[in-house]
């Protein structure tokens, strides 16, 4: 525990230091270097201490009569590992990427503070310190978003982001108000001891879902996410998408599984329903998007949905006393959180490399980069397969576990859940399939085909730091997919402390395969599958080259004879999405196309226009915004009244109060 706090202090010191030498050329390497070292230390510490008993510390900070409580329990360790692995890779990436920063002074001070805040949230053990760190996290990330403040869109993004963030914080304030009671027992251990009536508990849970969901990006609280995440520098985008959303998920787990005590079965409903909806809608958004980073941000929303599905299952199982199943679902959730951190970071690093190389982040203006940037494209491809839940990568391992826990759901006593969970399973499968579609599209439009702009044609491979960060994360995507048992075993203490159950120990199973419930029921062996695929691919290649022809002729592509079609004729990202748009988005986003055909003799080219609406924005946020604006305009007249009218107000107020007195007496 002291190590963690020391590291956090170190990070804060770094951000203070960066203020001093911000003008200096060595600032960038110094800051990122130290952050890398500290994150690695924290990561190692959490990896080692997850099995140990929780250790607590109280500092004379924060609420004076309470002090700042910190606690390092297995759950905190699990998330510390996630956070700091992401932070370490981001720092490596920053070492190279940071050199291209136009105004480093706007990034360097806030980057370590952001890391420190995220670590603090996870170890905080009283409501005040928790929310303090939580808001600090929002604030620091906001500052990082505003680093690109000259771009017109950034101001808007930052505005929406911080508003939504503090909205969520208020929801959490309410939740903690309920949990802590009127006397303000803000320490978590007293909150654990103190039990609410079912109604209040339900309210607190809903508030917690709203508060953490608005940070994690649950639909319909997600609107800020696709604005803010892409606006930031790419390694920060990676942190926000890959790590900060996980901190939000940590907060949900902490409140729902730890602080609120024994759940009732219906607590799982909000998580299941919102999670399912989020998973499906998020990836649909991503498919409609042509801005690379925005598409990635939307796919973050999808993965958050997947994690919430798993959490909902865990809650349902826990409520029904199926400890083993609950452990399975919770482990799946944590595992997927880890995995998403890995591949989403890789993807954002890739997008950052693309932006550095071409200055473009619109897929429609990229293409053919696989020739100019082979290494980063390989990393991007691996991460794309991982996020599409394809074996042998890690995404499949965690989603497989979630499917397995869905298959346990018939043991639930509640008929409602029995019927609901398979439906959620459909959404999960749909999300996985659409994610594959989304990343075929993203990878294809960005890296494959022929370059659509000269910028894309003249791209150059990223610097070695960036490549290192990408390759490390991609490698871990593969490793976690091939050796899932190790991760599962490592995560068990967290599950055990929260749901009082655990999965069968995986290390003892031969051939390193994983068994969620029992061997006869289902098992998966990533190593074997990977080995087999690799072996048979290699084997077949060898055989073919040995016994069949090995000559290769280069020729212009065939394309059914439609030769000489220009670069524009190749499939664009928008047209890639067209079938899915027709099938799904006509309902979800009121998508429709309009053909503008000029009359004969008119030389103008014909045009096919695509129209999309964001229902969430149109029906939820736009009305609110306009209402606030309207009432502001209305009330604003009061600024321009005459003194007599102001006196009138005083007079009326006085008379009203006197009348109240007269009536009261």
């Amino acid at each position: 525990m002291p190590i963690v706090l020391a590291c956090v202090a170190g990070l804060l010191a770094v951000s203070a230091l960066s203020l001093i030498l911000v003008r200096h050329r060595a600032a960038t390497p110094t800051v990122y270097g130290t952050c890398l070292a500290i994150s690695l230390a924290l990561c190692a510490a959490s990896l080692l201490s997850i099995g140990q008993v929780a250790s607590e510390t109280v500092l004379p900070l924060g609420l004076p009569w309470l002090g700042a409580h910190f606690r390092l329990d297995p759950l905190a360790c699990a998330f510390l590992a996630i956070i700091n692995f992401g932070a370490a890779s981001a720092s490596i990436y920053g070492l190279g990427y940071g050199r291209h920063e136009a105004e480093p002074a706007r990034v360097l001070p806030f980057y370590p503070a952001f890391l420190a805040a995220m670590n603090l949230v996870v170890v905080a053990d009283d409501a005040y310190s928790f929310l303090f760190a939580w808001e600090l996290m929002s604030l620091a990330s906001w500052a990082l978003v505003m680093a690109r403040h000259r771009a017109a869109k950034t101001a808007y993004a930052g505005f929406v982001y911080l508003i939504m963030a503090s909205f969520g914080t208020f929801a959490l304030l309410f939740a903690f108000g309920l949990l802590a009671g009127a006397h303000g027992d803000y320490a978590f251990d007293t909150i654990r001891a103190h039990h609410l009536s079912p109604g209040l508990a339900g309210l607190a849970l809903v508030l917690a879902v709203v508060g953490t969901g608005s940070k994690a990006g649950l639909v319909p609280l997600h609107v800020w996410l696709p604005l803010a995440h892409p606006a930031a520098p790419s390694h920060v985008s990676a942190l926000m998408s890959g790590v900060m959303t996980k901190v939000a998920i940590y907060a949900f787990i902490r409140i729902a599984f730890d602080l609120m005590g024994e759940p009732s079965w219906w607590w799982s409903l909000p998580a299941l329903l919102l999670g399912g909806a989020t998973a499906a809608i998020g990836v649909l958004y991503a498919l409609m998007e042509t801005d690379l980073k925005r598409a990635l941000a939307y796919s973050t929303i999808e993965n958050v949905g997947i994690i919430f599905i798993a959490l909902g299952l865990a809650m349902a199982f826990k409520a029904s006393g199926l400890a083993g199943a609950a452990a399975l679902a919770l482990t799946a959730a944590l595992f997927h959180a880890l995995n998403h951190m890995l591949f989403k970071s890789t993807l954002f690093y890739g997008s950052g490399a693309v932006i550095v190389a071409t200055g473009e982040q619109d897929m429609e203006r990229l293409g053919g980069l696989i020739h100019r940037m082979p290494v980063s494209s390989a990393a991007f491809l691996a991460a794309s397969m991982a996020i599409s839940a394809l074996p042998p990568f890690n995404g499949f391992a965690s989603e497989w576990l979630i499917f397995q826990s869905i298959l346990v759901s018939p043991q639930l006593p509640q008929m409602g859940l029995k019927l609901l969970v398979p439906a959620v399973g459909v959404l999960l499968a749909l999300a996985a399939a659409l994610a594959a579609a989304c990343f075929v599209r993203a990878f294809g439009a960005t890296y494959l085909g022929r370059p659509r702009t000269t910028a894309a044609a003249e791209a150059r491979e990223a610097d070695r730091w960036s490549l290192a960060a990408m390759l490390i994360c991609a490698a871990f995507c593969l490793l976690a997919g091939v050796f899932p048992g190790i991760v599962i075993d490592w995560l068990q203490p967290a599950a055990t402390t929260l749901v009082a159950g655990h999965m069968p120990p995986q290390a003892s199973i031969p051939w390193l395969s994983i068994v969620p419930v029992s061997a006869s029921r289902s098992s998966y062996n990533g190593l074997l599958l990977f080995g087999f695929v690799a072996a048979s691919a290699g084997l077949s290649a060898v055989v073919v080259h040995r016994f069949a022809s090995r000559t290769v002729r280069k020729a212009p592509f065939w394309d059914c004879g439609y030769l000489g079609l220009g670069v524009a004729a190749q499939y664009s990202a928008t047209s890639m999405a067209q079938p899915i748009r027709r099938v799904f988005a006509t309902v979800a986003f009121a998508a429709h196309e309009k053909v503008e055909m000029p009359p004969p003799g008119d030389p103008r080219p014909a045009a096919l226009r695509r129209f999309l609406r964001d229902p969430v924005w149109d029906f939820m946020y736009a009305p609110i915004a306009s209402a606030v604006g309207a009432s502001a305009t209305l009330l604003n007249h009061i600024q321009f009244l005459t003194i007599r009218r102001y006196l009138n107000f005083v007079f009326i107020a006085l008379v009203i109060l006197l009348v109240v007195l007269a009536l009261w007496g």
Partner: protein
Amino acid sequence: MSILAFNPIIALLLTSLIAATALAFVRDYRWSARLNILASFIVLLFALLLFRSRPPVNDVLLADDLNVVFIVLNAFVGFTTSVFSASYIGHELETGRLTPGYLRFYHVMFQLMMFGMDLALTANNIGLMWVAIELATLSTIMMVGIYRTHEALEAAWKYFILGSVGIALALFGTILVYLAAVSTIGEGMGAMAWTNLLRHAATLDPSLLNIAFVFLLLGYGTKVGLAPMHAWLPDAHAEGPTPVSAVLSGLLLNVALYALLRFKMIVAANPGTIAVGPLMITLGLGSLIFAAFMLYRRRDIKRMFAYSSIEHMGIIVFAFGMGGPLGNFAGLLQMTMHSLTKSAIFFSVGHVAQVKGTQKIADIRGLTSSHPLLGWTLVAGVVAIAGLPPFGVFMSEFLVITSAFARAPALAALAAFGLLVAFGALLLRLGSIAFGEPTGPTTPVRASYLPIFAHLGLVLIGGLYMPGAMVTWFQNVAGLLK
């Protein structure tokens, strides 16, 4: 008087008075500015002495847990403001907005105002306090109108009339309190002394106290700037010299609030009276939400922050209305933090307006690019005032919202709504003021950062770590307030 009977309160009051008279005769504005700083500093020293030795309470003056907080805060902000104004008025003189003659007047009025406020805070007599607040008000009115522009006169006039009516109402309330007291305590000064009133609070005539409190709430509420009596506040802040805006928001509102609290203590101590809480909660929430919406259409940066002061006064009154140890603690904390933060904001806004040559929000852009230090301090100030960590306002708002939600969810939700709306407005403006492509002159500014950093530093510490002594002391006061 012998050195043993040395009374810091009297010393502190005398200092201001002497300084005021002396300043009337100093011609060179540099010297008067220095003298002003010196006097404020001495006042601060005397105020700090109060920590060590509390003078014995008599019928005229008192120093107890409650008002020592205010006195010290008052003296501190007064001192920093005098430092700030020294650098501010120099620039005003160069640009010719002020003449040396007016500056003399300004300094005299400044000390007079400090005297009035300190007297109001230390008075043990409701009548004396009334007179003192009146004095402070009049002197600020003089300073608000000092630019002699049409807008300034308009603002001063509005302030004057509304203030006078408020004063009249407050006086009527005071008289009623005396009437309520006279039957039990007996005629004369004794019936106007806080100490006696509080001691006999339970035996006073409740129905008289009720009416009295209504008048006092509206009368002093006008000075606090609660809606709907707020109208004078935005213009007075916007049109007067920035140091005056700083002390208005930072101190004068607090002084009026202090008076209100004193009376609340008495009324609350009487079983027969109406519940004071609901009244204050209503006014507080009303001001909070109203000001929050008013923030959106502001075009003048100082006026915007003036409205944010109204909003914060709303929160504070709401907190005191909710009462309870947490509520009162939060109220006191919020009050302290607000006056520190808001005056810091006005300091930086003053420099911004000077360097950009305008107070129009639309004409101030990209400060963090054109004037990084100034811009970032402004950002920090707004972040602090918006109740974000690591600053102290976060703690008070945390306590207000959580404790209120546990007791009255609907009210807490309303308060949160108001805070969120206000936050939206501030953030919207901050985005255009501090970020984006800079506009206007980018000449380096000769700003006095010391006061700003001192305030923000204190606010930062308030958010992170509060010394135990201060806490127990706040808690005592919270206990007094019930």
